[in-house]
């Protein structure tokens, strides 16, 4: 019992939020992309690119004499820019050239692995870890951070965590309460119908993929600059796929994905604190949980999860 109390502490929930943040950002990106009709298993690669360029730009900022915080912020912005750029390859290949979107996503993931390894070797002459760079420290929100329990969990975190949490209601509002969101969903459900009423299917799909690039890129930046202060080769380590699982488990809705990401984040945090506490429970089964739950959700025995109708289908005028 004492052990349980020591594990389910404020620190555990704070670390749940931190573990969930990159997943939330990438999952929101995935939702925009898939809702517009483009399957996005490239999230993993986009996050990796984001993580790398966040580190690189923060490094270059420091070399250029910028203060640490400015370097790190520039890194986060750079991650979004490069996330956007890499996602555009996916967009052009799968929207303009109507390639199989899964194939293109696989290629993006391999490309990201190759490109980041290539640049790491070329720029820093190392494989494995980058040098340490200025990162984004926790930025407690004055007043709110001193609220007991809630303060340390929600209001004493690195800035990207706040962005991730705010992005959820914003994304939900845009998708379900604005004409733009209605159009994005329309081209993902029935592009032909949307086209007939004058909606530009291609433009909206590019937008959906671009948002996934920006958001997943920022999620990647959180890995290298929020959780750590270095880039490690292949550091996303399947988080892009967990985000994809969260999209499905959350039924392609931002709030649903938030719930899934928090659950997956909790599993991660419990696993880490169990290990730290030296408890001898095989952590592999906790790590397996997100994937098992998603599989169960997909089989429809517990509330069926259905993708947007035209997701994965290239549109031809």
């Amino acid at each position, binding site marked *: 019992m004492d052990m349980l109390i020591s594990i389910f502490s404020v620190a555990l929930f704070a670390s749940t939020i931190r573990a969930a943040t990159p997943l939330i950002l990438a999952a929101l990106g995935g939702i925009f992309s898939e809702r517009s009709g483009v399957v996005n298993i490239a999230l993993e690669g986009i996050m990796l690119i984001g993580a790398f360029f966040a580190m690189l730009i923060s490094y270059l900022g420091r070399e250029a004499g910028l203060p640490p915080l400015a370097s790190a912020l520039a890194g986060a912005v750079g991650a979004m820019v490069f996330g956007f750029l890499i996602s555009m390859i996916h967009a052009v290949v799968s929207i303009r050239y109507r390639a199989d979107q899964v194939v293109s996503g*696989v290629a993006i993931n391999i490309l990201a692995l190759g490109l980041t390894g290539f640049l790491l070797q070329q720029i820093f002459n190392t494989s494995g870890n980058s040098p340490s760079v200025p990162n984004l420290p926790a930025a407690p929100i004055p007043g709110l951070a001193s609220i007991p329990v809630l303060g340390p969990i929600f209001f004493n975190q690195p800035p990207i965590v706040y962005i991730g949490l705010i992005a959820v209601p914003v994304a939900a509002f845009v998708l379900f309460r604005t004409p733009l969101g209605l159009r994005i969903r329309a081209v993902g459900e029935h592009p032909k119908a949307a086209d007939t009423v004058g909606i530009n299917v291609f433009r909206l799909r590019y937008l959906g993929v671009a948002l996934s690039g920006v958001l997943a890129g920022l999620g990647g930046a959180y890995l290298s600059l929020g959780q750590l202060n270095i880039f490690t080769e292949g550091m996303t380590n399947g988080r892009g796929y967990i985000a994809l699982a969260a999209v499905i488990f959350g039924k392609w809705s931002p709030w649903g994905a938030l719930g899934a990401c928090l659950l997956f984040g909790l599993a991660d945090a419990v696993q880490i604190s169990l290990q730290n506490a030296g408890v001898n429970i095989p952590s*592999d089964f906790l790590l397996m949980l997100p994937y098992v739950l998603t599989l169960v959700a997909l089989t429809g025995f517990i509330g069926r999860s259905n993708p947007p109708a035209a997701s994965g289908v290239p549109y031809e005028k």
Partner: protein
Amino acid sequence: MTASQESTTTVKQRIMTVVAPILQQLFLPAGAIVLSLLAGAVFILLIGKNPVTAYIALVQGAFGNLFSIGETLENTTPLILTGLAVAFAFRAKLFNIGAEGQFLMGALAATWVGINLPMPAGIHLLAALLAGTIVGGLWGGFAGLLKATRGVHEVISTIMLNFIAIFFISYMVTGPMKEVSALDIPQTARVLPTAQLMKIMPPSRLSAGIIIALLAAGFIWWLLWKTTIGYEVRAVGLNFFAAEYAGIRPNYNMFLAMLISGGLAGLGGAIIMTGLFYRYQHGFEPGYGFTAIAVALVGGNNPPGVVLAALLFATLSQGALGMQNVAGVPQDTVLIIQALVIFFVAAPQIVRAAPDWWAKRKAAAAAAAEGAQMEGGTA
């Protein structure tokens, strides 16, 4: 026209009717490979290195001596099998992203049998290979079952099954199957000699597994084109509803396709363990199942093509280290080239447009040169 001339033209025509479709089939993958190597050369130029030197170092790294040839072929073996796995599923219009998980589960199963079920030599090896094939097949077949009975998209289910496999194996290798030793290394014990594949090209580590892989390619070719099973699987892939209307059970065939696909990947894993590593080490994730997607695409989902494509990608990865050591070009360049090959094969319009683009550029250059000449003439 003399008789001899006439006969040569007909012979020529006859040859062309056979060769032309093959050339046409080869155009896309060959074009994709050429374009990707050119794009890779641009990357190499950008970092101030010589692409020709780099590519020569790559080829030498892969084929420079008997040892490296053997290693390249050893690398080809799992790629043939996982490539066949992805290709076979593609024939039923199923995208098996889970070849990696099926491969790893097969590897674990074969290792388990190789360690724990002592049997006479030969039979033991067969049992280990069979165990890998069956477990890999079940892992893939489960995704097929979910697709057939619950409509779960195989891309998502196989991605999930990949991770479930990885964590399950991690548990087994650090727990129940962990070798009892003073060193406390997270790995299994060694596969018994009775369950090890023969080395066929010392000093390289090439095992007889390559022969099994080639036999499997032949078998899958036969299965696809000469049997009812293959016919039905292809029919379901070409047109689900037409196949159903013709009395073919599409759901059963999708399950079967994933079962066979997983079995091939699992056999690949079994061969790696009984022929190369002999024990399962924690964290073993070679990524063959992902390269397999490129192999299947470049190979046109046809067994002979898959074998050639597997050799190509094995050459790239085997030569990469040589390229880094000799020419100073990061070995990850090879991954970039691999990704580009996939893009180009997936978007054939780019490859088809390339010769036109080149011709246009040449014409434009010629026109510009002519224009310059004329200007020179008037001045």
